[in-house]
């Protein structure tokens, strides 16, 4: 108000400006992403998502790793499989030699208002390239954010210890919050009857 009075801008100009602003705002709202799109984080270059900065790597590693005082890989892997199954994951990869277990699960978050989307079930997410040249639908896209993926790896740390690392993807992001991992490791501790320690 004070600026207006000191600058002595005529009232009509102010009205004009506010009208223009209002118009802009409406247009902005129209030309802006839909709520579903809003929930996707924006960036200047989407290629940046391929790499992950060193800081976030270190942060993630600390939250996702635990040390177990055992050398029994087999038993550890079995415990992980059991835990994943308890949590409702569909297990897709189990590689004993590499100590890798990976699974997925769907947490319905989007698209419930439209009922069931049948095209979603026709979508084969195991294929790398999904060729929809003519046919397009919200099919997989409105639901991809529903996908939760979890990869757990077991590696030898030293002669007496194993490192278990669990990394999860949720709503098109890597989970960085340590709490879900704490819960996962608590469940795993119970399955293995072993105490887990943080990686020092």
């Amino acid at each position: 108000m004070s600026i207006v009075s000191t600058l002595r801008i005529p009232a009509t100009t102010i009205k004009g400006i506010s009208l223009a602003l209002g118009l802009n705002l409406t247009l902005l709202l129209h030309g802006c992403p839909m709520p579903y799109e809003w929930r996707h984080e924006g960036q200047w270059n989407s290629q940046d998502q391929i790499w992950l900065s060193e800081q976030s790597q270190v942060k993630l590693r600390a939250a996702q790793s635990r040390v177990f005082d055992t050398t029994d890989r087999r038993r550890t892997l079995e415990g992980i499989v059991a835990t994943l199954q308890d949590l409702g994951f569909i297990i897709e990869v189990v590689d004993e030699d590499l100590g890798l277990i990976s699974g997925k699960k769907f947490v319905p978050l989007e698209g419930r208002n439209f009922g069931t989307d049948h095209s979603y079930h026709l979508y084969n997410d195991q294929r790398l390239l999904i060729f929809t040249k003519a046919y397009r639908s919200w099919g997989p896209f409105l639901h991809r954010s529903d996908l939760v993926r979890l990869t757990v790896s077991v590696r030898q740390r030293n002669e007496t210890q194993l490192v278990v690392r669990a990394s999860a993807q949720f709503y098109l992001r890597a989970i960085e919050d340590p709490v879900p991992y704490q819960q996962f490791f608590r469940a795993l501790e119970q399955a293995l009857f072993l105490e887990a320690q943080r990686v020092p």
Partner: protein
Amino acid sequence: MTDPRRWGVVVIAGVLALHGCTTPQPKPDLLAPTEAQMKIRSMQTREFDVKDRSEAMRAVIAALQDLGFIIERANEPLGLVTAERFAEPNYFDVLGITVTVRQETPDRMMIRANAIYNNLPIEDPKVYQNFFATLQRSLFITKE
């Protein structure tokens, strides 16, 4: 309904409708190999002096990667590799390939490639010649 033109329309519509009703019947030879297919098969197949199947599969994978393919599946027990790529620089057309590796005799391997361009099999022998030339390099020529 006395207007003869109306009747004409009805008749034409009926004929069209009937036409649309016949489903194409599978020909008796649908699942039988044709001569053309046999010819393609011989182009698609090559034998190599390799003893170890997993070595042959690794060479197949390397050759496909050299050609810019993305490996989708590799199944050692079945000797199967599937790969796919876009026909760069054109991103509409898709080129898929399935390669099977079979032990023919203890020291010979039979390798068969099936290339598919936009869901239609490629029947040009040159394509397969090119593929096997790359595979040959990948299998035998030492690097560096």
